[in-house]
C-alpha cells in the first residue's frame, strides 16, 4: 500500500527510529530523574520540544508542496492557524462556566462584547469529535477553494506565492476584528482542559508532547507515502515540466490541488497540537512573516527531502529560543543572514550536506519494494 511503502525505506526507518528514540528518552528523563539532576527534563522543556515538533510537522507539509510540487506557498501559516483556531474554539467551550464571567455557554470575550448568544459557527465545538474534524476540514476547505481557483487559472510561480501571502494577510486582518467572533487581537486563551485532562498538569503536557511526536511520524509517513508513489513522481514531473506532464495526459491542476489540500490539512493538525501547548491562539499566527519563516526552515533544512524540513524547523526554532533570550532584536537579522548564507553556500540545505556524505545509503532496503509482488495497492 502507498502508505506503508516508505516503511521499507532506509531513510524512513532511520527517521522514525530517531524520532521515537527521542520521544522515549525525553519521557524517561522527565519521569525518572530527580529535579536537581543535570539530566532532568523539566515540564517547560517538554512543552518547548512539543512546540518544535508541531513546527516540524508544519515544515513537512510545506516541503511537500514546495519541494515536490514546486509551489512556494508563503501562506501555510494560515492553514496552521485555522487548525489552531478550531482547537482553540473547542478549548474555549470546555471552559464552561469557569470563566471570569461564569457564563455556561459564552466564552468570556463574547460576554465582554455584550453578545447574547453564540454565533452559528461556534456551535458544535463543544464536541471533541466535531472540533477535531474541523481541525482538518477548515484548512482543507480553504486550500480546496483557493487552490481550485489558482491552479485552474494556471497561476504559478511568484504570482502564486504573492497571492498566498495576500491570503494569510487578509485572514490576519479579518481575525483581528472583534466582530468576526474569534476573540479579536487577544485571540483565544485561558484554556483549562482538553478531553478532560487539565492542561496545566505535567502529565497532560507530556501527553501533548508525545501526541505531537506521533502526529509528526504519521504526517511524515503520509507525505513520504505520496512522494514515493507514482503520484509523487507525477508531482515532480509537474514541478519540472508542467506542459510535458499535461501532454502525457495528467491533469496538472488536479495533482496540484490534491497535494496542496493534503498539505493544508497536515498544517492544520500541527496548529491544533500547537495551541494547547502554548496556551493561546491569536491572529499573529496569520502574519505573513510567520509563513515566510516556515519556508526559511525548509530551505535551511533542505528542500524535497522531508526530513530536511524537520531538521530545519527544529534547529531554527531552537536557535530562535536561544537568541531571542539573549538579544531579541537581532533575531530577524540573524535569520535573514542565515538564509542568505545557506542559499549561497548550501543550496540543498543541511540535508544536502548529509546526503552527499552518505550517498548510497538512502536506497530502499527491500529491492522489491516497487515490484508487483504486493498484490493489492
Amino acid at each position, binding site marked *: *500500500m*502507498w502508505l506503508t511503502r516508505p516503511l521499507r525505506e532506509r531513510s524512513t526507518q532511520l527517521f522514525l527510529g530517531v524520532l521515537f528514540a527521542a520521544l522515549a528518552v525525553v519521557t524517561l528523563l522527565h519521569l525518572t530523574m530527580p529535579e536537581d539532576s543535570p539530566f532532568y527534563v523539566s515540564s517547560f522543556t517538554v512543552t518547548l520540544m512539543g512546540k518544535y515538533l508541531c513546527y516540524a510537522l508544519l515544515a513537512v507539509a510545506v516541503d511537500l508542496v514546495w519541494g515536490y510540487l514546486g509551489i512556494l506557498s508563503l501562506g501555510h501559516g494560515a492553514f496552521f492557524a485555522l487548525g489552531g483556531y478550531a482547537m482553540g474554539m473547542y478549548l474555549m467551550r470546555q471552559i464552561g462556566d469557569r470563566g471570569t464571567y461564569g457564563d455556561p455557554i459564552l466564552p468570556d470575550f463574547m460576554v465582554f462584547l455584550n453578545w447574547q448568544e453564540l454565533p452559528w459557527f461556534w456551535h458544535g465545538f463543544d464536541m471533541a469529535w466535531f472540533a477535531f474534524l474541523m481541525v482538518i476540514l477548515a484548512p482543507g476547505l480553504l486550500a*480546496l477553494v483557493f487552490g*481550485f481557483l489558482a491552479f485552474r487559472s494556471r497561476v504559478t510561480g511568484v504570482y502564486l506565492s504573492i497571492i498566498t501571502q495576500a491570503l494569510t494577510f487578509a485572514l490576519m486582518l479579518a481575525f483581528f476584528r472583534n466582530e468576526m467572533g474569534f476573540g479579536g487581537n487577544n485571540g483565544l486563551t485561558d484554556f483549562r482542559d482538553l478531553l478532560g485532562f487539565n492542561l496545566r498538569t505535567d502529565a497532560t503536557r507530556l501527553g501533548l508532547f508525545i501526541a505531537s511526536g506521533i502526529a509528526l511520524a504519521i504526517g511524515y509517513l503520509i507525505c513520504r507515502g*505520496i512522494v514515493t*508513489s*507514482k*503520484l509523487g*513522481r*507525477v508531482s*515532480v*514531473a509537474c*514541478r*519540472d*515540466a508542467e*506542459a*510535458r*506532464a*499535461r*501532454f*502525457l*495526459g*495528467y*491533469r*496538472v491542476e*488536479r*495533482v496540484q*490541488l*490534491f497535494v496542496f489540500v493534503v498539505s493544508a490539512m497536515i498544517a492544520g493538525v500541527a496548529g491544533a497540537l500547537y495551541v494547547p501547548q502554548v496556551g493561546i491562539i491569536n491572529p499573529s499566527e496569520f502574519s505573513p512573516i510567520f509563513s515566510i519563516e516556515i519556508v526559511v526552515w525548509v530551505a535551511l533544512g533542505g528542500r524535497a527531502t522531508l526530513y530536511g524540513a524537520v531538521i530545519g524547523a527544529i534547529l531554527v526554532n531552537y536557535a530562535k529560543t536561544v537568541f531571542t533570550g539573549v538579544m531579541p532584536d537581532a533575531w530577524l537579522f540573524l535569520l535573514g543572514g542565515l538564509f542568505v548564507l545557506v542559499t549561497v553556500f548550501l543550496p540543498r540545505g543541511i540535508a544536502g550536506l548529509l546526503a552527499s556524505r552518505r550517498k548510497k545509503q538512502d536506497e530502499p532496503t527491500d529491492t522489491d519494494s*516497487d*515490484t*508487483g509482488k*504486493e498484490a493489492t*495497492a
Partner: protein
Amino acid sequence: MSLFEEFANRDRVFEFLTPVESPVDVRHGPILYLEDVNVSFDGFKAINNLNLTIDDGELRCIIGPNGAGKTTMMDIITGKTAPDTGSVWFGSRHNLLRMNEPEIASLGIGRKFQKPTVFEALTVFENLELAMATDKRIIPTLRAIMRPEYRERIDEVLETIGLKDLRDNLAGILSHGQKQWLEIGMLLMQKPRLLLVDEPVAGMTEQEMERTAELLTSLAGKQSVVVVEHDMGFVRSIARKVTVLHQGSVLAEGSMDQVSNDPEVIKVYLGEEA
C-alpha cells in the same frame, strides 16, 4: 473537485452517463483534419488559413523555414494554443478545439517537443513509467503499483530506444540525442494513434539518425506519424508525402521529388539551403 469540474464543463454530461467512448473513428476518412485554421499573436499571423489532412496510418513529413508555423500547428492540435478560427478534428468524432491537453493526450495523440523535454529529476525508467498509457487520475496514480507486465513493456521500450544501460540514471545526465530518444520512448509508451514529432533528429549522430528513421517508418501503418524536421537528408530517407509550410499556410504538398522541384518551394525554402 472532479464533480465540480464536471458541472463547470458545460459541453459534457457526467462521465458515467455517457457511453464508453470508442477511440477515434476513422471509418469515414482521415485521422486528422484541419480546416481554415488561423492564429495570430499580437496581430502577427502565425497560422494563415491552414488546411491539412493526415490519413490513418500515414507517415507525413512537414518542412518549412524557421517561423513557418510548424510548432504552432502542433500546439493547436494538442490543445496548447486555441486558434482564432477554423476547425480541427481527430477522426470524424472528436472536435479537438473543445478539449484540453490531458483530454487530447488520453484520446491518443502523443507529442514530442522540439526542445527535448524529459523529466530530468526522474530516472529514465521513471520517465517511461509516467508516460505509460494507464489510468491517470489522482487516486489510481497514488495507489499504482509496478506490475510485471508494465515492467516488461518499459524494458521493451528501453531496448528499442537503446537506453537499457542507463535505465536507472537521472534523465538530466543524458546527452541531447539520448534525450530525444527518451522522448520518443515516452511517445511509444503512450501507444498513441497519432504521433506528432517535432524535430526528432536535432543533435543526433548519423547512426542515431538512421535508427530514428527506421523506428518512425516501422511505426507508420499501425500508427499515424507527423514529423517536422529541418534535416533534408533525414526527410528524404523517410518521406512518402511531404507538406511544405510557409508563413502559416501550405505552400506545396507531394512526394519529396515533387516538392523539391516546385519553383515556389525552391524560392522560399530549399533555395536558401542549396
